[in-house]
Structures are given as C-alpha cells and as structure tokens.
C-alpha cells in the first residue's frame, strides 16, 4: 500500500510536467487547429539557453525568466513569420502541421550548432537527492517542487484563461475566428499570445525536466510525446483535459513502471494514444473529434 502511495506521488509529480506540456499542445491546437510538433524543440532551445545563461553566471531566476521569454518569442516568431504567411497562401491543416515539423528540425539544428553537445547535468536550485520523508513516502525536494509548481502553474494558467478578459478573448477567438474578427478583437495578437504562452509553459516544464534528465539536444523528445499523449487522453481541445490527462498519465506510468516493468513505462503513452483514438477519439473531457490531421 505504501508502495502504491509512493508511486502515486512520484507519478503526480511527473504528471504535472506532462500537464504543462499538454496545456501547450492544447492551447495551440485550440488557437489554430494545428498540432505543434515544434513544441518540444522550442522548449529545448529554451532549456539550452537557460543552461548557457547559468554557465555565464546569471542568477537562476533571471536565467529561467529569460529562457521562458525566449521560448515564447520563438513561438510567436513562428506564428507571425511562418504560419500567417502560410495561411495567407491558403495552407491547409496538414501543411501547417508539416511546417511545425520543419520548424522543429530547424530548432534542433540551432541547438546542435550553438549548444553544448555532451549530455550535461543541469544545475537546478532544487536538489533531486535530498528528500523529505512524509509518513513513509519519500519525495525529493525537486519532485515536491515540481509537483507544487506544476499544479500551481496549471491552475494559474487555467484562471488566466477562464477569468481574465484576455483569456476570454482567447477562448472566443479559438471558438469562432470570423465572429471575433467582426467584433474587432485583435485576433492575430490574441492567437500569437496563445502560441507564446504555450511555449512559455513548455519551457517551464523543460527546465524541471532538464534537472532530472540529462540535458542533451533530443532530451525533450520523450516528454513532448508524453505531453502529446496526455493532451489526446484529456481531449485535444480541452484545457482541463490536458491537466487531467497529464496527471493520469504520470500516475499510470509510475504504477506501470513500479508494478509491472520499467520497460512497459514508456510504451504506455503510445498505448494510451492508440486506445483513445480507437475508442474515445474526443478524449476524456474534449468535445471535438480529432478529424483534421
């Protein structure tokens, strides 16, 4: 029983990072009905930038802040510089998805060119080896910090979207673009903000992940796919779904890894994608079938 509790806590902590990645995937999907395959790569650029800034002696909070801004800026450049011109030339959804793939490759190339290629340990203000022991359940400072941050981050983001005027504009624009336009909402800026926020959330998750994983160019590949699976599980157009999906996936992975086999842990996400697409394509909380890709 204690074991299970232990797995659940570890899983929730990991899952809260999946939730942050998934929120970014969902946010962009809602904005442009595009699956953003560059999401992980933009995040990687952010994490490498943070690493380089730290190496240059910048304090961690400033380095993190700048990295998040950089990720957001890159996503907005993609939106304004590539996606909008493509839309002007009547690109269809598949075409736009392929553009994100291509952009992801360019980001990878940038990291390979300018980043340090040896896998690095990422200096993080919270330690993964010091632990708390709460009634028999052991949790590292980093895991606990991740859990708290992930949950607060998701919740804060949710409030932003549900309770603020800009969030309202985001919801309106993603639901009915033409109507938002005829009401004079600056839809491009609103959508760009969605892209920026998505990338910012991704970089936040990436910074925590870099602290656990080694920082090397493809380090976000797996977390991105997990976040993606979480998004599909929760429903690609549902923000609460992304959070729920991320947490469920995290816990399921930890349980599967602990009780069945570690090898099974990583395939679980893909099994979930297949299972959801076959039996409940709109996801747990989504309302829209995945039809356009």
């Amino acid at each position, binding site marked *: 029983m204690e074991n299970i509790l232990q797995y659940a806590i570890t899983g929730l902590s990991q899952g809260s990072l999946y939730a942050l990645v998934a929120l970014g995937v969902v946010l962009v999907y809602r904005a442009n009905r595009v699956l953003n395959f560059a999401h992980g790569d933009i995040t990687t650029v952010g994490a490498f930038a943070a690493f380089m800034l730290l190496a240059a002696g910048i304090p961690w909070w400033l380095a993190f802040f700048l990295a998040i801004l950089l990720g957001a800026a890159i996503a907005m450049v993609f939106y304004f510089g590539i996606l909008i011109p493509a839309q002007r030339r009547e690109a269809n959804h598949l075409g736009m998805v392929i553009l994100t793939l291509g952009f992801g490759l360019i980001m990878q190339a940038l990291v390979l060119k300018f980043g340090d290629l040896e896998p690095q340990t990422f200096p993080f203000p919270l330690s993964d080896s010091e632990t708390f022991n709460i009634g028999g359940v052991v949790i590292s400072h980093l895991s606990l910090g991740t859990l708290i941050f992930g949950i607060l981050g998701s919740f804060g983001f949710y409030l932003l979207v549900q309770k603020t005027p800009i969030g309202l504009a985001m919801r*309106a624009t993603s*639901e009915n673009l033409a109507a938002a*336009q005829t*009401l*004079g909402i600056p*839809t491009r800026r609103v959508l760009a903000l969605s892209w920026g926020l998505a990338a910012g959330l991704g970089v936040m998750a990436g910074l925590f992940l870099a602290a656990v994983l080694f920082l090397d160019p493809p380090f976000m590949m797996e977390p991105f796919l997990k976040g993606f699976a979480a998004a599909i599980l929760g429903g690609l157009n549902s923000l609460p779904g992304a959070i729920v999906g991320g947490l469920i996936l995290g816990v399921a992975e930890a349980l599967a890894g602990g009780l069945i086999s570690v090898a099974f842990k990583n395939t679980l996400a893909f099994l979930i994608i297949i299972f959801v697409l076959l039996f409940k394509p709109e996801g747990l909380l989504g309302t829209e079938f995945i039809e356009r890709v």
Partner: protein
Amino acid sequence: MSQVAETGREQLAADKPPLLKIANIETLYFDRIYALHGLTLTIREKEIFAVLGPNGAGKTTLLKTVAGLLKDQPNKGTIEFEGRRIHRLAPERISGRGIVFVPEDRGLFRELTVKENLEIGCWGRRGKEVKDDLEFVYELFPILAERGEQQAETLSGGQQQMLAIARALLRRPKLLMLDEPSLGLAPLVARSVYDALVKIAEIGTTILLVEQNAKLAFSIADYGYIMEAGRIVLEGTSAELQENEDVQELYLGLGGDEDSSKGWRLYKKRRTW
C-alpha cells in the same frame, strides 16, 4: 427609380451624406465563380436599408465582402465608408471603423455564456458608456439579463438572434449589417426582433439588412435594393418598391393568380431590369 416618395417613417432626405459607397465591385469565389458582378449601391446615414433577392443572388456575399471576411475580395471596385476606402482591409480594421456584421448563423461563441458573449462585445471599451450601453441592451432584450449564466448554444433561436444583435450593438456600430435576422424565427419573435431594430435605428444606427421575408423587411426599411445574379436590378424607397408589380409578384406573393400572358409580360419586363 429616383423620385423620392413619402415613407411611413419620415421624409427621406436624399441629401443625407452617404455612409457607405460601394462602386462596381466584383467578388469571386475560387478566382472564377462570380458572386458579385459590378454591384453598386449607396447607404445613407441613419436609415434602414433592405437588400432582397432570390437564393444565390449574392446577398450574403455582399455583406461578407463589406465586412472584409472574404480574402482578397472585392477583386475589383471600391468600397468607401465615411469617405475612406475600406475594401480589402482586415475584418478587425473594418470593425474598428464602425461596421459590425451579424451573420446568418448569428456568429455566437456557443461555448461561452450570454454574459461572456456580451463582454466580448465590449472589448476594448471601458467606463460609464459601456454600462449605459449594457443597460440599453438589457432594456431592449430583457431576456438576456435573465439568462446571463446560460451557455449561448442552449438559447432558443430567437434568443440567440437577440444576443447576436445585442453583442453587435455593444460595439457602438455606425453601420449594423444583418444577414436574414428573421431566419428560422416564429412570426411573433421575428416581429419583436424587427421592433428592436427600429429602436436601434432610432438611436442613430444605420442598418443594412438582407432578408427573404420581404414584407417584414419593407415594414421597417426606408429604402430597398433588389439583387439578382450579383447585381442590383432595382432600387427605391420601400413605398416605391411595394408599388412595383414585379416586386409584388415575386417578393410579396401578390397577383400570382393572373393568366399566363401576364406572366410573359412580366418576364419581358424583367429582362429590362
């Protein structure tokens, strides 16, 4: 059709300044299907204008072209609003100039509540003015105040139309364009929507409406345009148009019981439109 006649509302003043001037526009779909074909019309300030025409005449296309919703259209011709060109501007900019379009499907944010839909209508405005406008809107459509927390998609058709109009009004439009506002509404509900339009016109909003229900449209419009195959084929004050035999026959369902020779005569006449 240039003489000015008495209408039910007030003496039409032909010297009112033009608000919207559309000259010779062409709108194409897929670069080859002509939906508007050299269309010209003028909307004067503070009047209600109706555009009538058979299915496929291009009425919806006309409104969408003015609203800027059709990319790179109009292909030819000019649209001026308050003397400045607006054709091929982005829809947000056109809305910013004071033109708001209520589409045939109402264009509501279906997942948002009634209140949130209205809030979006107030985007970028603040202060006492907004409060006054909200009050006006709730007075016009009291049901919206009762249903504030309800999701827009759960409203009845009539309530949805009211919400769409209310939301558009909160933009303080100079020109309000409506595509078939009576579509799918029971006669009494349609009537009350139209009564609201009259009140909206009374506060100085110019209205351009497209309608299938000619009787309803003539009941409030000062001036009408008849459209066919992408062009204006006839125009005049509501009174004039209602006098016109062809309009009576084709739009008001009158005089359909004549013998076939009459039909032929009409056809010949219609060709000269």
